[in-house]
């Protein structure tokens, strides 16, 4: 039995070409097929479909999509079964080099060489990449032993190698927290997690289960101010930061570690969107999309972390269902609603996805607050509508459903969203 049938012959034309076979790409493929697209090509860089899910061996996946808590590889496996049942061409070990404005997709793979296929629609589902040391500019030496958390996760979980013996983790994002636990359980001493912000970036659940359970300290408002070591990492200087987030070196201290993992955020891996010339959102780093997850270039759709960073794979897949469905509709000539309402981030809202929606449809809006509101939170949707949340923190994406009733009342075709502490608007 073969786990993944692998396409060795490419058609010259596909209804939908999907770039990336992670939780977004696989969901989009299934949805597009169900909506009537005939020929679908799903392309992935790695040898097996699944994307980053395959290295996320921890639980926390599937509650929304499969109604059951499973691990990343299981989530990928279940989706892959659906993809296979839906007769989708899968090309792995392949890379999409370019998509032209008229949707000619240039790709390379050892099986097919460099070749071009025409696409009726393209779904961008490339996911995200990790921010690196360069992005946050930690001064000091450049020894070995400084890894992004995701790279460490790959080497530990897939290949069974350890990054070192004594590690510190910069950034309290979920991958960093999860790697703190993984390393601690595999016999690497984890001296602490350091977070620049005054609050944790990861989910509360991970703070408790990855740090508290294993007695790993979390240092808030603290950063790595310098890296020392000529060959291998020998030492880091950590220091508390002031209100401007600048390290206070005189209050800093040194830690002997041979490993530093960076979990300092993800960035949409949206180069393909950029080269296609679609409009980008400066806050998310991903393309601007409408209620069908279509970018500003007709026929090019996007979903998942390439659009904005999600907390849960389930949400990525749900978003990709919208994209896959609409991509299929766009090639089958189905009537598509006009995207007539612009969604605008207001008070304490960093961004909202999608950026426009159709007023006669029902949509899930996803957004993040800029600053944490650690108590009852009021969402203002336009002038009239109010929703209550128990709290809203940047670490957790907020989703709200809006329907025609609300959207048709919107004035000037703009829906502004604010998230403010409930007590502030009591009057």
């Amino acid at each position, binding site marked *: 039995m073969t786990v993944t049938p692998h396409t060795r012959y490419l058609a010259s034309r596909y209804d939908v070409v999907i770039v990336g076979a992670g939780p977004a790409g696989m969901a989009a493929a299934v949805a597009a097929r169900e909506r009537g697209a005939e020929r679908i090509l799903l392309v992935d860089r790695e*040898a097996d479909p699944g994307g980053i899910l395959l290295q996320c061996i921890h639980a926390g996946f599937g509650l929304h999509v499969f109604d059951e808590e499973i691990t990343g590889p299981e989530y990928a496996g279940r989706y892959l079964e659906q993809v296979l049942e839906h007769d989708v061409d899968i090309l792995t070990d392949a890379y999409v080099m370019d998509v032209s404005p008229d949707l000619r997709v240039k790709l390379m793979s050892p099986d097919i060489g460099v070749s071009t296929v025409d696409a009726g629609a393209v779904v961008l589902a490339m996911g995200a990449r990790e921010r690196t040391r360069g992005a946050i500019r930690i001064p000091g030496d450049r020894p070995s032993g400084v890894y992004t958390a995701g790279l460490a996760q790959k080497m530990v979980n897939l290949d069974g190698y350890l990054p070192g013996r004594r590690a510190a983790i910069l950034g309290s994002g979920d991958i960093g927290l999860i790697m703190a636990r993984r390393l601690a359980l595999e016999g690497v001493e984890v001296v602490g997690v350091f977070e620049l912000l005054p609050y944790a970036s990861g989910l509360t659940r991970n*703070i408790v289960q990855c740090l508290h359970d294993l007695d790993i300290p979390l*240092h808030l408002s603290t950063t790595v101010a310098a890296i020392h070591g000529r060959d291998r990492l020998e030492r880091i200087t950590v220091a*508390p930061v002031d209100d401007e987030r600048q390290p206070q070196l005189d209050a800093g201290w040194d830690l002997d570690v041979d490993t530093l993992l960076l979990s300092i955020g993800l960035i949409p891996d949206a180069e393909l969107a950029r080269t296609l010339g679609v409009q980008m959102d400066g806050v998310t780093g991903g393309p601007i999309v409408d209620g069908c997850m279509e970018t500003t270039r007709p026929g090019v759709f996007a979903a998942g972390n390439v659009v904005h960073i999600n907390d849960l794979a389930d949400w990525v897949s749900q978003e990709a269902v919208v994209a896959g469905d609409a991509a299929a509709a766009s090639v089958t000539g189905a009537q598509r609603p006009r995207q007539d309402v612009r969604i605008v981030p207001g008070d304490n809202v960093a961004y909202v996805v999608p950026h426009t929606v159709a007023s006669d449809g029902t949509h899930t809006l996803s957004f993040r607050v800029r600053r944490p509101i650690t108590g009852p939170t009021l969402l203002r949707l336009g002038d009239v509508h109010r929703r209550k949340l128990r709290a809203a923190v940047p670490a957790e994406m907020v989703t709200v459903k809006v329907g025609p009733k609300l959207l048709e009342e919107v004035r000037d075709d703009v829906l502004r969203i604010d998230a403010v502490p409930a007590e502030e608007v009591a009057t």
Partner: protein
Amino acid sequence: MTTDLHDRATPEPEDATPQGDVETHAYLCTGCPLGCRLEVDAIDDEVVEVRGFSCKKGERYGRQEHTDPRRPVSTTVWIEGAAIRRAPVRAADSVPRDQIRDVVEALRGLIVPAPVRRGDVVLRDVCGTGVDVIVTRDLDRVR
């Protein structure tokens, strides 16, 4: 600058404490972004009162976390003859929090031959928990 979030740890039981006294334990609720700081009053395992929650789920979590905290556990085992060196596995059900390390230790050194399929059991009743450890990814035999 250790955050007080970390002060979850149950106060050390003191020998002098007479049995039957009410002690207060602190937990951080994981149910939602609110992250409520729960206070659980209990006489040993008998919960008297949960405070600090904002919803029913929070109260239930406080009780559970005090009386029988359980966790999902995942790790990896050696796999022979697949394209990668480690096969991902998990406890099929959650296990007592205090046994997480034991479960991972019990799997250390274990080698399974490829192929494996999702759901294959690699270890039954791990550490007497009554929970099996299962593979979470299909891995073919290659070459």
